């Protein structure tokens, strides 16, 4: 039996999330629905403060929501303990952050090998895989360098390697190109698409950067904590006169 949900990696329905108490309470997610398919790049765009980061934190098993359903790869995240959520992230998710968040004392290879080491693989095997991943991202001659010796684009490639080295089913990126210039941003997006989609992954990207919208399969537009509309660039181009 094949249904539309078979290809859904993420399905969130009616998510509510607020921060703070009493007067200071901010209701950020207000019954948000969101889904992402495998083999696709799903963009999440919208004005600053509308709740994009909050939403991907919830579906990234990092933040718990107040109400609604969060189904990721068939798991009900709300039913998992914090330890199980950590295991779930390590097993299924890869993250890329705007600030890269590399460990400054570790070389490119060591940084990229962390998820495998955390899974209990031997350091040697983990670093071999990390090096191969870096090479595939065009970082073959930078593998021994420390983050401080790398440019922003190179650091983000190390971060991509770290996010993909353990072959996660879903890749979650928050503003991956915001710290990069346009050309580097394009290169990084190209690499992301090739590397990420190769494994029949679902890639979710939060961005402000309309220069990279062309890479999207579907774009979720968000405002004030809800998805206002979903756009498919290819079809919209087809629809264009």
């Amino acid at each position, binding site marked *: 039996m094949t249904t539309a949900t078979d290809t859904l990696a993420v399905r969130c329905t009616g998510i509510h999330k607020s921060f703070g108490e009493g007067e200071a309470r901010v209701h950020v997610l207000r019954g948000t629905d969101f889904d992402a398919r495998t083999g696709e790049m799903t963009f999440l765009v919208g004005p600053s403060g509308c709740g994009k*980061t909050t939403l*991907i*934190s919830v579906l*990234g098993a*990092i*933040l718990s929501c107040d109400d609604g359903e969060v189904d990721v790869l068939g798991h009900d995240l709300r039913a998992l303990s*914090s*330890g199980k959520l*950590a*295991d*779930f*992230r*390590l*097993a299924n*998710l890869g*993250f890329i*952050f*705007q*600030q890269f*968040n590399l*460990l*400054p*004392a*570790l070389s490119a290879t*060591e940084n990229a090998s*962390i*998820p495998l*080491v*955390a899974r209990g693989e031997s*350091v040697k095997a983990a670093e071999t895989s990390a090096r191969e991943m870096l090479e595939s991202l065009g970082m073959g001659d930078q593998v021994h360098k420390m983050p401080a010796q790398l440019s922003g684009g190179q650091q983000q490639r190390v971060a991509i390697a*770290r996010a993909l080295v353990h072959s996660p089913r879903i890749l979650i990126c*928050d503003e991956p190109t915001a710290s990069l210039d346009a050309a580097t941003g394009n290169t990084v997006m190209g690499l992301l698409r090739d590397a990420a989609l190769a494994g029949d992954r679902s890639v979710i990207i939060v961005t402000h950067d309309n220069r990279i919208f062309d890479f999207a399969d579907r774009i979720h537009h968000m405002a004030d904590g809800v998805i206002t509309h979903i756009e498919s660039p290819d079809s919209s181009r087809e629809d264009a006169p």
Partner: protein
Amino acid sequence: MYRVALRMLLGDKTKCLGLVFGVAFSTLLVCQQMSIFFGLLGRASSVVNDVREADIWVMDPSVKTIDVPYPLRALELPRVRGVEGVAWAVPFFKATVQVRTHQGMLENAIILGIDDASLVGVPDAFVVGSIDDLAEPDAIAVNPAGFRLLFPGEELDVGRELELNDSRAKIVAIVDAAPAFAANLTIYTRYSLATQYTNNGRNQLSFILAKSADGTPPEVVAERIAARTGLKSVTSQQLRRESIMYVLANTGIPVSFGTVVILGAIIGVAIVGLTFNQFVMENIKQYAALKAIGVRNVKLLFMTLGQAAFVGVIGYGIGLGIAALFFSTVPKKSDALRGFYLLPEVAVGVAILAAVIVILSTLISMRRVLTVDPATVFRG
């Protein structure tokens, strides 16, 4: 992941050095002070230790420490000898005396007078000469530390003369007695000469040294002597303990050393704990990133513990090494610290202190690691 934790720690060289230094400093300070403390306590009983042949000491009932004897009547000696289970009993004289060299050097000395006939009570540790030389007229033996005090810079040798209360005395032997608590110079001589040197008259008996007969426990014989003579009679073991307790109860030593040791421990915990906490705080984004990737809290906790344990072990090693170096060199050169050494018990005790520092540091910083919200990695 411990490798990752270690690299994180080594990545911050300044803090890493500060942490290692903190543990090393604490270890060294506490090791050193505790060893000197126990060394000093040992001196409180060194006179007892050096009388190896006897196992029972008899004294006036009012005597609390070997350093303050009270004279016994001469007739007590035959009474003690008459107690059942006493193999032999000899007189032992102990007093302080002023000593002058021909060069004009003036020192306080402990003078120990041993039985003229048996010469019992001198440690069997002659550096120069032998016990038989003490039978000569005006013969005395001194300890090496005392000799160096009287004749600075000269080779240990016999033949020199001293003045003890205007009487002539001749050094015929050098005996390696343990340094005593009250003075660095210890003089051994015959009982008859000792009473003469101190102008105490003939029958000034400080202690009676006795030996229990084979097969009778010294405790039993000591009790029997006490019951029969009304004197205080204890085994060497008991007297050693009493003399140490006397120093503990009646001098400022435990308080002053205790203060330094406690300060050392507190400074260690404070420096290391706070520096480690700062290290964790400054690297909190890294812990958050690891958490977001999916490293469990328990694992992060053990990583932090591993980091603290690393500085703990290295710091302890360095501190202990320096302390060991100190005690293997300085006491050989300095008579003030002679016979002091790094006790294994102290090394173990300080290892426990280092472990406490490590655990407290981890506990102080743990909360931050455990509570940091992995979602912060998404924020600038």
